[in-house]
């Protein structure tokens, strides 16, 4: 029910006097308020809305994200749910489109009575959903959008970010590459927020380590032909090309680099490779060094078991093994459900506080180091892996060779804390569903 003691919510209520008069009732949040009150005392299911893309630039990743999220829910439901309550979920296509994301968030919260929203790949969509979620105080897990701004200037008290971000990956790669490859760098930047913030982070790190940026080529989103850029790169002859290209664009870039056999010199650093992007393209076009948060052949306890369960749940799907996107979705959803359990209910402020204090052991994360939620930026601080194409795969899914891993502390996005301003708890509308 709504514990309507907080300033902002009360102001909202007062403001709608006109609506109340017209509607002739005391309530004007529509059916939503009624059902919330009615829910009191019953063992009503906990409902989660998955705001996953099914079409557009990140349709592929969004659906892989969803597979991981569902797996976590199935595991809890098999054990009887959380606090004796079943977990239900609903999803709709956010179309990699912020305006659609915004509408679907409104729908999930006000019509479908979801107390929690999960899922995002595109930072624009994530922000749109965050704004709606913040208005209602609904907790939102940004599973896979890795724009540094998500845990920086666009952070929010109700939003938690689960992927490593561009700055993390850049920190992990730059120093090593300057030492082993060379100091002359060229940047290839997808011309939108994630690309820009990632490239800016890379640039700062390269310059701090004594390297030099010879050029920064901005690539419009939806570029299908990279020849002009590749010609420029060949003419400039840098030691390293650091690419912050995402989604469908990276797939096209990869194919064209492979065709030209340009994947040897210069050395390529791809900030991050999402598994669904890699799987579609085929092994021989995987090039360069890149960051990730997880790999299905990590030699750690529990990984093989997790992969088996995932495969059982997603047999016949388009991707045969879980990758980092599905992993992030799974981990986020699992930790949310655990936090609800620890909080003893779905009161959003209590769950937020639980998530802010979250610490997960390495074994539990199936990563090399312990992880924790940064209470200041709401970003999961976790192991960052560097990988490249596996020259000697053990099976057709074994595309990566993990070459190193570093602890969260060594790859922290140090700028984020200064940019992120979380609202005070009493500024967040509170409720329990």
């Amino acid at each position, binding site marked *: 029910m709504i514990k309507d003691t907080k300033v902002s919510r009360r102001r909202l209520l007062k403001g709608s006097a006109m609506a109340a008069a017209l509607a002739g009732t005391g309530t004007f949040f529509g059916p939503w308020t009624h059902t919330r009150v009615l829910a009191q005392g019953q063992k009503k299911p906990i409902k989660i809305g998955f705001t996953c893309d*099914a*079409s*557009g630039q990140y*349709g*592929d990743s969004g*659906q892989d994200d969803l597979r991981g999220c569902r797996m976590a829910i199935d595991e809890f439901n098999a054990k009887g749910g959380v606090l004796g309550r079943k977990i239900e979920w609903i999803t709709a296509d956010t179309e990699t489109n912020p305006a659609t994301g915004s509408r679907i968030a409104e729908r999930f919260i006000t019509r479908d009575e979801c107390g929690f929203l999960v899922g995002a790949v595109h930072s624009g969509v994530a922000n749109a959903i965050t704004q709606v979620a913040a208005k209602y105080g609904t907790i939102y897990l940004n599973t896979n959008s890795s724009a540094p701004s998500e845990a920086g200037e666009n952070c929010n008290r109700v939003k938690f970010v689960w992927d490593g971000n561009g700055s993390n990956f850049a920190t992990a790669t730059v120093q090593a590459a300057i030492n082993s490859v060379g100091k002359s760098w060229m940047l290839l930047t997808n*011309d939108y927020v994630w690309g820009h913030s990632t490239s800016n982070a890379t640039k700062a790190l390269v310059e701090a380590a004594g390297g030099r940026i010879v050029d920064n*080529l*901005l*690539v*419009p989103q*939806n*570029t*299908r*032909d990279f*020849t*002009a*850029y590749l*010609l*420029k790169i*060949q*003419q400039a002859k840098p030691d390293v090309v650091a690419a912050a290209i995402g989604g*469908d664009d990276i*797939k*096209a870039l990869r*194919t*064209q680099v492979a*065709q*030209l*056999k*340009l994947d040897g010199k210069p050395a390529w650093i791809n900030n991050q490779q999402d598994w*669904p992007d890699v*799987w*579609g*393209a*085929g092994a021989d*076009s995987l090039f360069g060094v890149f960051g990730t948060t997880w790999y299905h052949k990590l030699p750690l306890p529990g990984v093989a078991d997790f992969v088996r369960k995932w495969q059982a749940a997603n047999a016949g799907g*388009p*991707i045969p093994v879980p990758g980092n996107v599905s992993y992030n979705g799974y981990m986020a959803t699992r930790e949310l459900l655990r936090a609800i359990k620890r909080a003893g209910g779905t009161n959003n402020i209590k769950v937020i506080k639980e998530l802010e204090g979250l610490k997960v052991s390495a074994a539990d994360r199936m990563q090399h180091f312990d992880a924790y939620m940064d209470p200041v930026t709401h970003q999961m601080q976790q192991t960052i892996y560097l990988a490249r194409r596996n020259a000697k795969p053990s099976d057709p899914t074994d595309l990566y060779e993990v070459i190193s891993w570093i602890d969260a502390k060594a790859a922290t996005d140090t700028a984020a804390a200064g940019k992120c301003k979380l609202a005070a708890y009493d500024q967040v509308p509170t409720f329990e569903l």
Partner: protein
Amino acid sequence: MNLLPHILNGITLGLLFALIALGFMLVVGLMEQINLAHGSLFALGAYLAFVVVSGRLPLPVEWVREWLLVPLAWRYAAALVVAPLLTALAGMVLELCVRRTYGKDPLYGLLLTFGAAMVIEELIRLVWGTRDYVLPVPPSISGGMIFWDLIWSTYRFYAAAFSIGAIGLVWLFIERTPYGAIIKAGAHDSEIVRALGIDLTRLRLYVFAFGTLLAALAGIIVAPIWGIRPHMGVDAVVPAFLIIVLGGVGSFWGAVAAGILVGLVVGVSGAYASEWSLLSMYILLIAVVTFRARGLSGKKSLLEA
């Protein structure tokens, strides 16, 4: 920076654009019908080619295994024939719908094919999923070659040469064969065509199918560069439409010239102001059509009314 490589790149890119626009132009020029599903049929062609080359055929397992033993070059060649023909069949089905709009405001044909584009794209998504595929090509036309001290993609030159060939053949077909003459007459005076005892309905069906076939062919040629994904159709139909408007409705060489011009502008702006390169073609169009009523060399057409 040496500009020459970028000009060369622009021309090869332009030839690809012209190839993409070729089928669109045929249908616009000869039937005064804007086929916004052109891009989706282009995508369908690429998907079908992928199915043929990679052996994902709905056939018994042994047959598929046999088929995959055939050298890639042969499978690729087979795809170049089979996929466009199959797509042309889909095009014929679409024409059966589109023919209801003949004689009405051309807007209706445009809108109908807009709806068809949505439907085809969603069907592709349903059948093949949202993930993308790579069309394997024979080693003889992949890889790189070196000149001007730079590595160039062999495939792009193959694609450019293929485009030139296709453009030439279509031109010969229209200008030098009786079929072409009939097609042209069908466009400009349906009375005359009827008087000659030619079945106009069937003629339009075949012209539409031919346009679709060219769309599929373009899809197969472009697929190894762009990758195969459901919305590749939108990436193709907008430039195709733009090229036709820029070249002028009803002008074969206008469209070819417009294609190359667009390629040059995109290629060269990619070198100097890369972030604006996608916009450059629109600015080119605005600059030309503001001053020239029918693009570069368009003719009077129903589509202006």
